[in-house]
């Protein structure tokens, strides 16, 4: 396991940081969020040209075959500027699942076009009552001749309204919480019977509640083995968790810098408030929280491609717990040290706080991962 970046990773990090610095300032981001679909298609094209969309995709399908650490490097930079383009939902989760579960034909048909930025996918998995249990699936898919008929509700599906296809999880056998009996489908988003209610999320992304009402899906669109999708989902969501932590590491880095900068400049009582030792120590705690979380995240990212399931789950859960705690501390203290200014929508710090809070509240919060970690001793 290496604890330093390779030359390629350094270059990637520099170019992604440059993009955020030049093309993704706070005001630009605000405009992008207000746009139809909630992200900038030109940016997506640019990501394709720079090879960022291809990064984690295997070489034989038009990708660059990058490791999880490579992708983490990119996402850390994205986190520094709270990039809202659908990298997590389309590339990490959906393309990730296609790659893990799809057959040769499905991969050939879709992965190159995803890498080129021409096809957008979204992962329709969470359900209204599933909380953080990945196996809690009520949405049913019933076989009818050459088709499956899908009925059910999906919740908080990020970037659904701009997706061409959904990777959809369904129950084809067993009880609601069973590991066995989960099947994935690749479903065109314009299939009849799909109803969508889209909304902004508090961290500036877009998501939807989707109902599937007798949606017919060709059996060729089953992704992977019937009833056996749980392990693929777990594996890909685990990787997504680490990459969310990487994004959080970037967000924490900026949040700490913004705060330190603010207290060095804000004057009260005739001096910079950063001259008060109580505030210095608080800023030091913030910096430490970021450093520990980032270190653990890269360790998990490095381990994840080589570990067995239980090693992987422990590494991921540890990183997610540490990130949740650090993100909360940095977000809350970031606001507090900004005083009233921290409460305003015009200051970036609050937006970092919100994103960090929402990263904790997806695919398992601190409590969830702490428990999962404890169960795999």
């Amino acid at each position, binding site marked *: 396991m290496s604890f330093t970046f390779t030359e390629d990773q350094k270059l990637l990090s520099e170019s992604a940081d440059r993009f955020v610095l030049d093309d993704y300032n706070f005001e630009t981001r605000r405009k992008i969020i207000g746009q139809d679909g909630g992200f900038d298609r030109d940016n997506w094209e640019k990501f394709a040209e720079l090879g960022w969309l291809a990064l984690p995709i295997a070489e034989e399908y038009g990708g660059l075959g990058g490791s999880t650490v490579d992708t983490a490097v990119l996402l850390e930079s994205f986190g520094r500027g709270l990039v809202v383009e659908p990298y997590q939902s389309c590339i990490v989760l959906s393309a990730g699942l296609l790659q893990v579960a799809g057959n040769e034909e499905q991969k050939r048909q879709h992965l190159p076009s995803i890498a080129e930025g021409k096809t957008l996918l979204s992962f329709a998995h*969470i359900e*209204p*009552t*599933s*909380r*953080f*249990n990945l196996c809690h699936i009520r949405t049913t898919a019933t076989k009818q001749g050459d088709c499956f008929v899908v009925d059910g509700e999906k*919740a*908080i599906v990020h970037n659904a309204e701009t997706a061409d296809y959904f990777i959809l999880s369904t129950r084809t056998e067993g009880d609601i*919480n069973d590991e066995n009996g989960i099947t994935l489908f690749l479903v065109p988003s314009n299939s009849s019977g799909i109803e969508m*209610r889209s*909304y*902004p*999320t*508090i*961290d500036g*992304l877009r*998501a939807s*509640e989707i109902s599937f009402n007798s949606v017919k899906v060709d059996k060729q669109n089953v992704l992977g083995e019937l009833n056996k999708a749980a392990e693929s989902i777990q594996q890909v969501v685990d990787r997504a968790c680490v990459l969310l932590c990487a994004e959080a590491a970037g967000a924490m880095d900026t949040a700490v810098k913004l705060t330190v900068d603010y207290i060095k400049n804000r*004057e*009260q*009582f*005739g001096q910079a*408030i950063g001259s*008060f030792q*109580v*505030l210095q120590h608080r800023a030091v705690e913030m910096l430490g929280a970021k450093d520990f979380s980032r270190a653990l995240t890269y360790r998990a990212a490095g381990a994840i491609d080589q570990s067995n399931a239980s090693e992987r789950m422990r590494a991921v859960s540890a990183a997610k717990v540490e990130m949740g705690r650090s993100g*909360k501390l940095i977000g*809350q203290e970031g*606001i*507090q040290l900004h*005083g*009233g200014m*921290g*409460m*305003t*929508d*015009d200051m970036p710090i*609050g*937006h970092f*706080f*919100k994103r960090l*809070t*929402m990263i904790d*509240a*997806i695919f398992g*919060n601190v*409590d969830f991962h*702490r*428990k999962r970690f404890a169960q795999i001793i």
Partner: protein
Amino acid sequence: MWLQCVLVAVWGSPDYLRLFKESEVMDLILTPEEEKFRDEVRAFVAENITEDIRKKTMTGFRLDKVDHESWQKKLYEKGWMAPGWPVEYGGTGWSPMQKHIFEEECAAGGAPPVIAFGVTMVAPVIMAFGSDEQKEYYLPRILKSEDWWCQGYSEPGSGSDLASLRTKAVLNGDHYIVNGQKTWTSLAQHANLMFCLVRTSDEGKRQEGISFLLVDMNQPGVTVQPIKTIDGSTEVNNVFLEDVKVPVDNRVGEENKGWTYAKYLLGHERTSIAAVGRSKAQIKRLKTIASAEEHNGTALINDQAFREKIADIEIDLLALESLVLRVLSDESAGKGPGPEASFLKIKGTEVQQGITELLIEAIGNYAHPFIPESMDKGWNEEPIGPEYASSIAPHYFNWRKASIYGGSNEIQKNIIAKAVLGF
């Protein structure tokens, strides 16, 4: 028995010392008269709070100006608008325990919080330092909620260091001409009056050049500009003052003594800022939500780790309540709130924030959707996810303000360090 003796020895006054029932730890043991009083308040709240208002208060949806005013007018008619005031001005003459019961029952019944700027903030200052004319004019109007007050202390350059304020008032015959900017002025959009600290002298100590003015907001030169906060709401404002005329008669007390009055006021708001009753009501709401949330095939409330986190907060709240009762009983014994009252602000806001943290945890994935309009009046679309969820994340972010306003928690600690520990 020995325990009670020890407690009396440690705490002094036995008046606030009530042991808690074993089964319902959150309830105080009340005398029969107090129970009767509690039932009376409970019935009054139930009769006068509509389901719509109750829901808004409990969920943190936006309460309109009229929601507050109509409740406050009912309190006035009942004679309960100002429990903290001396009886001669319209106070209730209640014991500390009655005041506490009153707060708790109002909160439990979903009554909107009484807006503090008039009745608990400016009124005591007017009573203590105002002219007879000011008392006669303003105090009855405050009781009847005929004015909406706001607090014009903070400025862009003067937050924690309030004494550095620069909004200038220059005497010109029988009035002052006021120029400057106030900021973070809560609910100024509703206000017709602002109590305001202004600089009337640049000589000597900064604290000794400040005066306390009552400013009519509905006049030329006063501009209120909303500030959007991270939760999407606009409860705070910038207030610009340009050549605003304020009659000398609207100065409270002496010129250049405003700082003393302002500090007097701050001492008066700490017990209400602790908001014990509201936190109890929110803990109850948290338990209801945690019972409704599914978690690994059972309710979240059955999760041991989550229960223990609720317990941690409840224990903190019990400690807070005990200290509030102690301060209230000191007050009724004629001892003004000491600097320890700063602990009430610190712990009170920590408890409030702690509850918002558990609420956002409780709703899991449904922290994400953000539809600001859904918290406004008149929004009647289907909620996204469970109805109780929509305001929880905005509220969590919004409530970070509590450790900042009213003198930040760091400043409260500085006060205790100086005034109690002698640094």
